[in-house]
């Protein structure tokens, strides 16, 4: 290859990772009372990055108590105008430290630096900036003349967009006057801990934000804590159901953002080159670790062969490798556990008769990797068309008419997102109207904005994050009766 791109690594030296981290409770870091620590690794190299605390019951209690104290004594008494200013400070600090946070995110998560730098971090800053402005304008949001906060919010977030998921949870909660206890995913705690430092730099009153690290058990203890007023969870549908069961019968408000199996629908009159980009972005962006990923490609049968040939050709230019290399398109799979899940489902695809294809892709020796993969001749009955793989694996089905596309797209217990590719405006609107999905992308995919509400229908969860609608999750919006 005459034009081989030389390695172009982003420098690691911008970030300082401590050898270990405590729990961020009441404005400072402290050792876990249970004394337990666990390692977090770089999934691209399997090197240990740091050791973080495992929060036990006593730690969870302390964190909730700190959040409650801060709520009662400080945050609920503070004017919206002042809350806004703290959140604006946080937004600006994130912008200042963006590069450092992006490198840290890439190291801990495995996603390409180009994505953490160009997608994750800008959105993180934007979420805080947007929500800061609502803190003193809640009377205009359509929730009544003086909407009240809920109290203490327990928030459990996943590993796929660690800092961004933190922003989606913390920004609206604080803007609406709540205090939070947040548990990041066990494989990606580091940017949440850096965020704790940002809260300190912003002078945020102690206890308004508390970060406790741990695994599933810590999360369970947190959401089941009796002094929590609100629970927000993003993660798998399975765990979401468990949380919904746990919260039943209590007065806790709940929002869930769960899995998806989105249909990305390409019509014969799609702007085809951009549609191919949209397909690639829809499933291979972030290694497919995206709840709203376009994991089911529905191609109009009359153009399926042509589109597939173009798609395969496009996949040969995807670069898989060192996530810190600025030219990497596909990074590492976040954990060996996730890799096993992807491998299991992919094997089922072959076993059930679908045809598997990947471009030739050199795989590094260490770390967790999976090449971009396409399954053709997939039908709705295949497991790979029904179950969320959460990896860079695309299942391709066909359809003949718009009605059939709608039926197939909606034929799933999930309902998070959908994509529509056609040059015909009326068809976009007609299809969007029929989709049983919380987000519909037309002639684009995987676009996010703090002003734009995000959330699912059906088993993809309930509640919205972002926009005016997203504020409702953190306000006391029920009628007194």
């Amino acid at each position, binding site marked *: 290859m*005459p*034009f081989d*791109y*030389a390695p172009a690594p982003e420098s690691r030296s911008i970030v300082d990772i401590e050898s270990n981290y405590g729990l961020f409770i009441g404005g400072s870091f402290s050792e876990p009372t249970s004394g337990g620590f666990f390692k977090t690794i770089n999934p691209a190299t399997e090197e240990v990055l740091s050791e973080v605390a495992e929060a036990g019951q006593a730690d969870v209690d302390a964190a909730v108590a700190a959040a409650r104290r801060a709520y009662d004594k400080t945050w609920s008494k503070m004017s919206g105008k002042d809350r806004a200013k703290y959140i604006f400070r946080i937004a600006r600090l994130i912008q200042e430290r963006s590069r450092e946070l992006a490198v840290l995110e890439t190291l801990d998560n495995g996603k390409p630096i180009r994505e953490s730098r160009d997608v994750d971090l800008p959105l993180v800053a934007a979420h805080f900036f947007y929500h800061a402005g609502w803190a003193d304008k809640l009377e205009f949001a359509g929730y009544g003349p003086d909407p009240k906060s809920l109290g203490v919010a327990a928030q459990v977030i996943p590993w796929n967009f660690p800092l961004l998921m933190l922003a989606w949870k913390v920004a609206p909660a604080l803007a609406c006057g709540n205090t939070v206890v947040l548990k990041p995913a066990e494989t990606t705690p580091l940017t949440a801990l850096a965020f704790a430092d940002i809260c300190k730099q912003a002078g945020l009153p102690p206890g308004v934000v508390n970060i406790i690290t741990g695994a599933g058990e810590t999360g369970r203890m947190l959401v089941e804590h009796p002094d929590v007023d609100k629970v927000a969870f993003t993660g798998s549908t399975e765990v979401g159901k468990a949380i919904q069961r746990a919260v039943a019968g209590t007065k806790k408000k709940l929002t869930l953002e769960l899995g998806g199996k989105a249909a990305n629908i390409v019509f014969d*009159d799609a*702007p085809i*080159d951009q*549609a191919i980009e949209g397909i690639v972005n829809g499933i291979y962006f972030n290694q497919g670790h995206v709840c709203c990923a376009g994991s089911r490609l529905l191609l109009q049968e009359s153009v399926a062969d042509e589109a597939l040939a173009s798609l395969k050709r496009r996949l040969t230019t995807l670069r898989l490798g060192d996530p810190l290399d600025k030219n990497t398109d596909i990074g590492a799979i976040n954990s060996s556990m996730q890799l096993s899940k992807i491998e299991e489902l992919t094997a089922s695809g072959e076993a059930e008769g679908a045809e598997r294809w990947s471009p030739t892709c050199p795989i590094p020796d260490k770390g967790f990797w999976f090449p971009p993969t396409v399954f053709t001749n997939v039908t709705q009955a295949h497991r790979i068309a029904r179950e969320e793989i959460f990896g860079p694996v695309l299942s391709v089905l066909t359809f003949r008419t718009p009605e059939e596309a709608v039926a197939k797209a909606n034929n799933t217990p999930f309902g998070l997102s959908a994509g529509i590719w056609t040059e015909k405006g009326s068809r976009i609107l007609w299809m969007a109207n029929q989709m049983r999905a919380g987000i519909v992308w037309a*002639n684009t995919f995987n676009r996010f904005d703090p002003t734009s509400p995000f959330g699912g229908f059906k088993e993809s969860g309930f509640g919205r994050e972002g926009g005016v609608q997203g504020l409702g999750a953190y306000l006391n919006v029920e009628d007194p009766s």
Partner: protein
Amino acid sequence: MDNGTLTGLLHGLPGVDQVGLEGRAATLATRSIKKDSKIWAIDTAISMVDLTTLEGMDTDGKVRALCAKALHPDPTDSTCPAVAAVCVYGDLVATTRACVGDRVHVAAVATAFPSGRASMDVKLMDTKQAVADGADEIDMVIDRGAFLAGNYAKVFEEIVAVKEACGDAHLKVILETGELKTYDNVRRASWLAMQAGADFIKTSTGKVSPAATLPVTLLMLEAVRDFADQTGTRIGVKAAGGIKTSKDAIRYLVMVNETVGEDWLNPDMFRFGASSLLNDLLMQRQRMRDGHYSGPDYVTID
């Protein structure tokens, strides 16, 4: 081909989503090209330059200086490659050919460049004279007025006629994308030109802004890719006007690489129409060689 058939063909091409196209070009522009790949890219870009002077005040003296630079761009470094071609107005072709011999191509703009507003006779005469004087490449302009009025057949026939007048000279067809305005028009004009016999499709005259841009060139590369798939014929692409820095040039090469592939990464298939770009490429080449940033005193004016 009658206008009705041609219209059906061109209007049947897939549409282009502006936001998607520009997004793809922007993502490709984030590629970071360093070290060996950067050195290779700079040398390749130099070898793809059509060093150009197209001014009313051009003289033999100006042209001679340009030719000398074209042949030996960096007087301090004989390893620096020569450019691909010198590009001039038709009445300066003879002087140009006398200066460069056979060492680089001589490209002449023709067909009432840049506006294209003249009779067919005048345009053909323009072409034939340039070829007779020694041009082995002709850069023609399409009739944008006819195109925008939907008279595709007229545009088609003109290209066919000019191609014939070229004889053995190779024909670049300038679409003037800045006047076609929409990406849909650029796709259609690209196909029209390729079907009519263009050897190269070229973005712009450089006299209208915007001239070459990354998205419009990406679109044209997609068109030549699709044309090659469909017909087996490979057409070249020339991005002209507004490309000032090495960084820009390297972004174009990345686009070529990831859209049509390595077969187009040579001067027979891709060109830059530029004047000031060359000095920036030379300064970057010096930086890679010497390890420090260079300055305007270390490259020549022409």
